[in-house]
């Protein structure tokens, strides 16, 4: 510990230079934190997936409908604990297409499938009992300033009501939320009661979009899924059943490899930082050759001098990195507030912190080793004589 003052003295020998380097390191790690949060958000679908949940969609395309009558038959498959169904409403709110997803569901069945969502018991009760009822995710409620008890006028782009009118109105009876930020993104939706919806719509009555199935043993997921699909094989509406996680991964892949795109951007960022700080470190050591020679004259061993230089590099990157990551964490609440449900909540997970430390240490080694090596091989006589 007694070398800390020496370390700091070395680091702040030229204040402007160190501060500027720290700032650029900070910005790099802030980008790292923010972009990794985006990757996390894209992968959160798969991470928050419940291994005991299966999804059944139409076999040939996710947009085809399935008969509502499949519900009882699915429930009869051994290993199935419960099932629910949902259908895409195609919402248009305040003239914006797909402003948020709206699903027509059987309230009790659907909420039973997702124990990770929290709905106040009284509000859940109201949703079950109100045929024109709707509940909405907390982030949506905040974004639009909705109040429980108000009417929600939402148009559909897909489902006309009997008579051809595309405008619908629901009663907002409750709010859905979730503790875990990875799950909270899944509550950015409005649920409406299918009882009213199915009765009032013009087309496709008695059909639904997909089924959500809860099973007792996640180890049997494959067999149960195959069993469900066998039930409907060779019928006009064949099915495809898969664990929720597989479905989420497949969907993320439709968007493409976001992770790879972001990794490439970050590689460019850190390469730039490597060059910047590498140059600063090299320059700083070059200027201090005589000082290092004096340290050695005073009895500092080669190893100690090496460690001193390395520690300086590590300190620079760790301080800059920590401040940058902290800045990213500090910015996220504002970002999330402004996207409000258009994008899943961004957050920095533990893995990102570990990644940041790993990157900082790796960069410190790359930046610090060449000057440290130089300091180690320094011959006192030459250095003091001013030969470089």
């Amino acid at each position, binding site marked *: 510990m007694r070398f800390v003052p020496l370390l700091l003295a070395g680091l702040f020998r030229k204040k*402007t230079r160190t501060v*500027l380097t720290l700032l*650029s390191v900070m*910005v790099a790690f802030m980008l790292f934190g923010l972009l990794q949060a985006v990757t996390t958000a894209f992968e959160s679908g798969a991470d928050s997936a419940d291994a005991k949940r299966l999804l059944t969609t139409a076999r*040939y395309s996710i947009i085809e409908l399935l008969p509502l009558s499949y519900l009882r038959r699915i429930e009869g498959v051994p290993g199935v604990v419960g099932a629910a169904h949902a259908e895409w409403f195609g919402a248009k709110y305040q003239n914006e297409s797909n402003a948020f997803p709206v699903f027509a569901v059987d309230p009790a069945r659907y909420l039973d499938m997702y124990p990770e969502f929290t709905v106040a018991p009284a509000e859940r009760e109201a949703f079950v009992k109100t045929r024109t009822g709707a509940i909405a995710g907390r982030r949506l409620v905040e974004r639009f300033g909705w109040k429980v008890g108000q009417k929600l006028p939402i148009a559909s782009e897909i489902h006309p009501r009997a008579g051809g009118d595309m405008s619908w109105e629901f009663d907002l009876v409750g709010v859905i939320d979730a503790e875990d930020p990875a799950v909270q993104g899944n509550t950015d939706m409005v649920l409406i009661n299918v009882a009213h919806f199915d009765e009032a719509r013009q087309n496709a009555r008695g059909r639904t979009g997909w089924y959500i199935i809860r099973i007792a043993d996640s180890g049997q997921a494959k067999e149960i899924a195959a069993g469900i699909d066998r039930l409907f094989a060779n019928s006009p509406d064949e099915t495809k059943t898969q664990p929720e996680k597989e479905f989420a991964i497949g969907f993320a892949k439709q968007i493409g490899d976001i992770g790879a795109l972001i990794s490439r951007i970050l590689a460019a960022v850190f390469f*730039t930082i490597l060059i910047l700080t590498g140059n600063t470190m090299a320059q700083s050591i070059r200027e201090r050759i005589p000082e290092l020679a004096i340290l050695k004259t005073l009895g500092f061993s080669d190893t100690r001098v090496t460690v001193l230089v390395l520690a300086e590099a590590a300190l620079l990157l760790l301080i800059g990195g920590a401040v940058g990551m902290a800045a990213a964490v500090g910015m996220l609440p504002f970002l999330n507030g402004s996207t409000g449900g258009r994008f899943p909540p961004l957050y920095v997970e533990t893995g990102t912190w570990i990644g940041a430390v790993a990157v900082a240490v790796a960069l410190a080694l790359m930046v610090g080793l060449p000057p440290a090596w130089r300091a180690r091989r320094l011959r006192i006589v030459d250095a003091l004589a001013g030969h470089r």
Partner: protein
Amino acid sequence: MRALRQIAQITWVNLRNLPQRLGTSLVIVIGIAGVAGVLVSVLSMAEGFRHTLASTGRGDRVIMLRAGSDAEMSSGVARDQAALLASLPAIARDGAGRPLASAELVVMVDLPRRGQTDPNNVPFRGVQAAAFAIREELTVVEGRRFNRAVREVIVGRRAAQQFEGLGVGSRIAFRDSDWTVVGIFSSGGDVHESEIWADAEVATSAFRRQGFQSLTARLVDGSDAGLADLTAAVKRDPRFSIRVWREPEYYAKQSKVLETLINVLGYTVAAFMALGATFGALNCMYSAIASRQVEIATLRAIGFGSAPVVVSVLIEALVLSAIGGALGGGLAYLYCDGASLSTLNFDTFSQVAFDFRVTWTLLGKGLLWALVIGVVGGVPPAIRAARLPVTLALRAS
């Protein structure tokens, strides 16, 4: 005049000894190249996507959807309505007197990307015979067109590149039906090149649809007046609840969400990187000046003014950042231009393939950002250089 000559002289000296300060100078160049490179490559993705949608459709063509639907996927046009709409007088006719209108249905089919197994929503379009006459830009580049009333498809050039098993002669199975790929078409790099096309009648029966989703037609008169005629005729008839869009207007709208998303990502990342690079540039210019302290002081001592010193330092920073900007843009061009990509378009919920496009405008943008970083990073050190007391600086070494 004297000041100008002084600037030229000092700048020339500075630039000539740049190679001696190669390390420091390279740092500025590389730092700024990173910013320009990332900015240009991310924006080239948005530009390619926008270009693909913007080059879809012609001004003299319209697409009609159910009123209230903003995309074909959510629209519905009944069979009898489609026939009535096609026979309106504002719609052009071919030599034989048949309307140049094609009622179309669009469904999604699941196909894996090349070398993968996960399904993707690939748009499958059933078109009527007039579709080819309406869209003159479409040419079959391999194989032939599909025959009517049989399960044959032609595949867009980009769809064939991106997805597995779409070569001429291959068979694809969707929903109790087997289809044969008989041709590959190109249509000027537009969004239809990401689609699979078949005969509308065969497709409606195979996918068990009753109606269509849209009607694409050519106007007799492509001007605003011609469009107004059609719109008025559609509005007047109480049987229709239809919205008429000019094709380019409709397709431009389909690029909104994704384009915004990519642009926000690109500019945010580039802005932060630019901030980091500015700190780096400041650092390098400060140390460049520190190493030339005596030289600058000497110049001042023999009568050079401080303005020429400031300007010359600034010019050096600008030259370095311009090299960085050009390098970054060049790398983005080498690595990204023409690379193709397929992603889910959130507006249509279907896959759309497009190429990265590095345009001159984007390269200009990269260079502009580079120069701004150069100015911001160069001015404070330049001012410091000019303010240095001559006597102090001369004594410094």
